């Protein structure tokens, strides 16, 4: 018997393993990585920042493609120069040589230096891994300073027409200056920046407004609909199918559909709203902040109230009708029955529906992205939209990841609160 238990347990772990590994690889690991990315100034369109560095490093290929030629050209220039210029150029030459020696003082760097030099002398291309070498901070800063000084001096001299090979020299100095790669580790700077940025707070506020208003309306309407259709009637299946359709069509497609209906010139819903007096004139719906928020919430209510109603209806159907019969015999009014029987027994259904809907609403993306794009003037920009824009429009992956982590933390807080209320009901084994 004991062996049997053991083998059952082993089988269980084997069966669960593939799923767990997949979840770990495609969901949990990326979230951890997002957090890691958020600690760097990580930009895809900037070669110096398109990977993650903790330390200063030197691109030896770039350095050695310029440095020797810069030195030899400087030497020629010095022999031809006189007076003040000669002094300036000699001083530059000495400084460059000094900093070159400083870099090579490190044994590891010196070895790599030779290696790359040889590869370049053979007209070959060094591989990515070996050409980047990390150097200590002091040397790096010294090098950067010298390079900038060289660039500046040569540029001034060249502009004054005091150099024979001016363009060549400034070109080489420019080539040299891109060789130092600064660390792009910024710690929690992104978080600090965004938490002090009014745009983030506006986005969080918009997200909260959208979530709270749409979820409350959906709950009240959904509950009302569930109570009304919780009875036997003709055409039940058809009604059920009807209310499933808004839920089932892609949000992006329904958002586009609403954009047509809300259109300031030709939108039928905009026209009806203006006729009823919900808005002053048709174009207000998508061109004013309040109008756009209303439009977004209205579309969301249209799309997800039926879903809410279905979840609550299923909960209602588990309440035994004998309870209501007993209550009405005791003389309880309909309202008393609703408050004393329906609501308490529906509590866990309501909480589960609220949990799923709140989280869905909080991470809303497609609806707003397609319907308003976050506009007008960021008035419907939610936190997910903001994170997307920072990542893919500004190609700032570090900052975008920080925002994504903020969304993640908010979602975690919301679920913790709900789960506190729900207890372990949700995952317990119901035998």
């Amino acid at each position, binding site marked *: 018997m004991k062996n049997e238990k053991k083998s059952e347990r082993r089988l269980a772990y084997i069966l669960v393993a593939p799923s767990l590994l997949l979840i770990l690889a495609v*969901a949990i690991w990326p979230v951890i990585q997002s957090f890691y990315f958020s600690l760097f100034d990580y930009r895809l369109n900037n070669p110096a920042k398109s990977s993650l560095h903790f330390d200063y490093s030197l691109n030896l290929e770039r350095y050695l493609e310029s440095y020797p030629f810069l030195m030899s050209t400087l030497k020629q220039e010095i022999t031809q120069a006189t007076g003040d210029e000669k002094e300036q150029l000699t001083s530059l030459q000495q400084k460059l040589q000094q900093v070159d020696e400083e870099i090579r003082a490190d044994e590891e760097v010196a070895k790599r230096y030779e290696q790359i030099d040889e590869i370049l002398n053979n007209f070959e291309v060094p591989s990515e891994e070996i050409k980047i070498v990390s150097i200590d901070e002091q040397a790096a800063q010294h090098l950067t300073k010298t390079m900038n000084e060289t660039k500046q001096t040569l540029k001034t001299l060249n502009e004054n027409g005091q150099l024979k090979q001016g363009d060549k020299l400034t070109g080489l100095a420019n080539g040299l200056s891109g060789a130092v790669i600064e660390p792009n580790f910024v710690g929690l700077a992104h978080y600090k920046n965004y938490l002090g940025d009014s745009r983030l707070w506006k986005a969080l506020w918009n997200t909260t407004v959208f979530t709270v208003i749409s979820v409350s309306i959906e709950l009240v309407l959904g509950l009302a609909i569930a109570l009304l259709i919780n009875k036997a*009637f003709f055409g039940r299946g058809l009604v059920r199918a009807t209310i499933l359709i808004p839920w089932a069509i*892609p949000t992006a497609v329904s958002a586009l559909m609403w954009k047509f209906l809300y259109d300031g010139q030709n939108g039928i819903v905009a026209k009806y709203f203006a006729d009823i007096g919900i808005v002053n004139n048709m174009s207000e719906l998508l061109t004013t902040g309040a109008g756009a928020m209303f439009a977004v919430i209205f579309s969301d209510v249209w799309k997800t109230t039926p879903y809410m109603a279905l979840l609550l209806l299923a909960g209602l159907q588990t309440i035994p*009708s004998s309870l209501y019969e007993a209550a009405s015999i005791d003389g309880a009014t309909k309202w008393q029955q609703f408050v004393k029987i329906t609501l308490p027994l529906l509590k866990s259904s309501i909480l*589960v529906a609220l949990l799923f809907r709140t989280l869905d609403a909080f991470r809303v993306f497609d609806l707003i992205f397609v319907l308003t794009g976050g506009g007008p003037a960021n008035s419907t920009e939610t936190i997910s939209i903001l994170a997307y824009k920072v990542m893919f429009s500004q190609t700032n992956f570090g900052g975008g990841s920080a925002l994504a982590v903020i969304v*993640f933390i908010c979602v975690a807080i919301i679920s913790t609160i709900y789960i506190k209320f729900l207890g372990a009901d949700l995952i317990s084994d119901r035998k």
Partner: protein
Amino acid sequence: MQKKAGPLFYVFLFVFVFLVMFPFLWILLSSIKPLSELFGEEAFNWFTSHPTLKSYVSVFVNYPFVKYLWNSTVIATITTVYTVFVAAFAAYAIARLDFKGKSVILGIVLSVSMFPQIATISPIYMFVKKFELTNSYLGLIIPYTTFALPLSIWLLVTFFRKIPFDLEEAAKMDGATPLQTYFKVILPLAVPGIFTTSILVFIAAWNEFLFALTINTAENYKTVPVGIAMFQGQYTIPWGEISAATVIVTIPLVIMVLLFQRRIVSGLTSGSVKE
């Protein structure tokens, strides 16, 4: 169930259904209007006197709409088949076998299904870019695992739990191993649950937007939601074509919902209702 529906109830029902369906109805009516009647004064007429199928033709001639449909079908089908297959084993173990850490695992599954997509998009984007999977089917199938797998496991666990435990006991008595029990006894009984799960996972994968928008940007690999959303140009929005395309994707959905509504509802509500 005890209450009887009166005529007022049917009026309410009709109004409700009409309001829910109104946007679709309007899109359907707009899709057969000639272009000139979509704008200006005539835009608010319910019925056109010159119905035309021009918008429908244009959707197929001027846009790679068939390609979008095909891409979505392939991606959603493969995602569904593979995640439900992997999830079925895990769900069986969680629902029927006795082992430690069960609720922890189910807790992880549930939490992952609540992850906001935006929190995983940057590493996943870097990953598909590094392995040159952008603009490929695999480039979406892998990220779709993030929501499809937890959803499948969650739904299947509730379905597996509903199968009577006596059957397993009987099989054990007859000397069947757990794996034999799984394939010979549980799996055949779980077919309806697996089918329901597949429908819901398929719909989720078909409707996905954020990953599809960022990863498959080439015309030839766009999915339906992204394809239609990108119909809108910089300055003009081809409402006729958009209406027609919306109708085209909605019709199969209506048929599917009509056929499977019971299953879909049971899937949506399972796990949220204590029985």
